[in-house]
């Protein structure tokens, strides 16, 4: 495979040196098969399809495939080269994720590894990718992912975990809830939210009555629900920080017992791309509010993305949009630098994403503009795609929703912390 890459590089160098005609001749001279293979740029997509996080993989896969088709059908990048995706299952386990990453790097020679949902998995494979000088685009929230010397290769398409808590607390305060409790799953992106959230409540004169952390995969959450919701002086609202399956159990228990405290959850649990309402039915879900770093709702990019995914305008894609953005920014940065080499093209990610520049959401159009040499600021379907120099996202919007008659109703949009661009 390596030698094919070299064959591919040679014509492009000559093209620079001696003009298009020589390049054309060189291309013709290259063996047909080698050219066909070299034309494809292998991209690894590491996602959970089994294990406790298995519910989140399939939509992200679909988004990656759709976006890739969009780019490839429009002629690809770098003068006709197309993306080829290789999917691997991380089995929700860091060790399996590591083996899968090695396969993506060594067998498929992937130029970048994207997807990467779970924070522990991102942590386990980070060093491997950095050492292999390969770009890594993650959807995990744990702060530690972008810590340390990343050589500029690690990019997070998600808000940092510590940014979620204050936003959620603000959203709850805006609803007038000052006496609250926290019920959280022991999980690496949830735990860092708790302390910052508490601080915001206390600063606003509110009170966090009680907080309970439970383990994932328990047979029942009755005791936890009882303690938080069934307290003798129950809180006005409860911040439920968990994932889909445990949240379904918790809500059923709350509704069954007729507890009165309001529920504020993460959208990853209370929407989960429609799976929550599908699981409990609209009556049980009625009135539950949820919050999460959200896609740019109402933006044309997001609307088009919903259509591409075959969903209606009510659908809330929390992670699939980020996968779409990962594929798009990869294409744009590669096109901008005329390189598929990670240390080179990652330098251009901020250039094609951050303002100033013409805001473009359609990746095909964006590619045309980049080729024409104009400065763009790509705005994606998962976020506006603005990054700081560590690879963390800036200006994330947080959506605050309420479930009414089985539909998501947007309550408000809360802006995350703004950084200097």
């Amino acid at each position: 495979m390596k030698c094919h890459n070299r064959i591919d590089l040679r014509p492009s160098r000559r093209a620079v040196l001696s003009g298009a005609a020589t390049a054309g001749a060189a291309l013709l001279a290259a063996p047909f098969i080698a050219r066909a293979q070299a034309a494809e740029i292998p991209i690894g997509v590491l996602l959970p399809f089994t294990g406790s996080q298995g519910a989140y993989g399939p939509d992200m896969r679909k988004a990656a495939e759709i976006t890739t088709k969009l780019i490839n059908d429009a002629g690809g990048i770098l003068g006709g080269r197309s993306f080829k995706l290789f999917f691997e299952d991380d089995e929700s386990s860091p060790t399996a994720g590591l083996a899968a990453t090695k396969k993506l790097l060594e067998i498929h020679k992937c130029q970048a590894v994207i997807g990467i949902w779970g924070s522990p998995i991102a942590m386990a494979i980070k060093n491997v990718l950095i050492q292999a000088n390969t770009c890594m685009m993650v959807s995990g929230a744990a702060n530690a992912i972008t810590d340390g010397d990343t050589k500029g290769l690690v990019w997070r398409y998600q808000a940092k975990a510590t940014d979620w808590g204050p936003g959620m607390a603000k959203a709850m305060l805006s609803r007038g809830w000052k006496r609250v409790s926290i019920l959280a799953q022991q999980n690496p992106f949830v735990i860092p939210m708790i302390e910052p959230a508490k601080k915001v409540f206390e600063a606003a004169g509110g009170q966090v009555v009680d907080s309970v952390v439970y383990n994932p995969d328990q047979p029942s959450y009755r005791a936890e629900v009882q303690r938080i919701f069934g307290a003798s002086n129950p809180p006005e609202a409860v911040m439920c920080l968990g994932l889909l399956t445990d949240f379904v159990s918790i809500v059923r228990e709350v509704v069954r017992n007729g507890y009165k405290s309001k529920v504020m959850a993460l959208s990853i649990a209370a929407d989960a791309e429609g799976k929550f309402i599908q699981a409990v039915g609209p009556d049980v879900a009625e009135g539950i509010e949820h919050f999460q770093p959200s896609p740019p709702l109402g933006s044309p990019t997001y609307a088009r993305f919903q259509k591409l995914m075959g969903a209606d305008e009510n659908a809330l894609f929390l992670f699939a949009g980020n996968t779409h953005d990962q594929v798009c920014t990869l294409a744009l940065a590669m096109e901008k630098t005329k390189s598929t080499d990670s240390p080179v093209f990652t330098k251009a990610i901020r250039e094609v994403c951050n303002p100033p520049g013409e805001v473009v959401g359609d990746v095909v159009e964006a590619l045309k503009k980049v080729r024409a040499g104009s400065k763009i600021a790509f705005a994606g379907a998962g976020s506006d795609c603005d990054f700081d120099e560590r690879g963390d996202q800036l200006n994330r919007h947080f959506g605050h929703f309420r479930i009414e008659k089985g539909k998501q109703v947007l309550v408000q949009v809360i802006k995350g912390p703004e950084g200097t661009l």
Partner: protein
Amino acid sequence: MTAYLVTILILVCIAIILGLALNLQWGLCGMVNFGMAGFFALGAYAAALVALSGAGTLAGIVVAALICAATCGATALVSLRLSDEYLAILTLGFGEVIRLVTLSESWLTGGSLGLPGIPRPLWGWVSEQNYELLFLALLVVVVLALFLVLEVLIRSPFGRAVRAVREDDTVASTLGKNVTMLRVKAFAVGGAIIGIAGAFHAYYLTYVDPSQFSAIITAYTFMAVIAGGRGSNKGLLFGAATIMCLIEGSRFLKDIVQVLDATQLASIRLILIGLGLILFLIYRPQGFLLEYRLRSSSLLARSSLNGATRMHDFKQEAS
């Protein structure tokens, strides 16, 4: 390609070390350890914490081995009066306790965030590109050393006595063997080996978190030991490699099959692993290789052998 193979081989080596430990505890002594994953986690966290404190990676391995030996020994001591199934649940429960502690005591273990940035042994001796090869070489040396030590141990009077206890502890005790101490010692030695495996796992990943130590590790280790032939350390080398090939090889299957969605492919992969295991048990019950046995000729040649062993070997020879 090479680096992928190196990774697989490193994982195979760690699986072999775990398998050697289980082969000693279960294969040789007949004591079931269903808490493999828990002790493995204990070793990994111990090594990680020691190495992160700056005491060095060798100290990490030693501490991991000692801690696991101590806890395994204590578990064996506690479960002395219990039969196999109860020891199984006790070790399973112990594994759960370790999982919950690693998950909940974040001041020590980092909770679900885990411990990143664990130093690696011999780091800086070679270039970063070649480091994994060096790590593999180191692991192979460790595997060989453990293998030789265990083979010597099995053939030693201690090993024979332990097997006598496995076959019939009443006979062994009437022959003057201290059954209690034998079981505790053997289980502790097994624990030390699990600790070493844990340490290398932590060093290889440079990151530990609770989700790495799920019960599936216990299942895979049992599969490796069974595939290799219970009690046979040589067979285990094949067994562990086969299981790893099954687990990793099935990744390539989905590159060929294109009709199903990813979740379905992933589940088919695990179905195949389960089916493979069942078919193995049914059609290849003895595993790849048989347990080491004394031949009767060598037995007769050595008159100083103790009766328990002789009895055990004759019994097996006869069966």
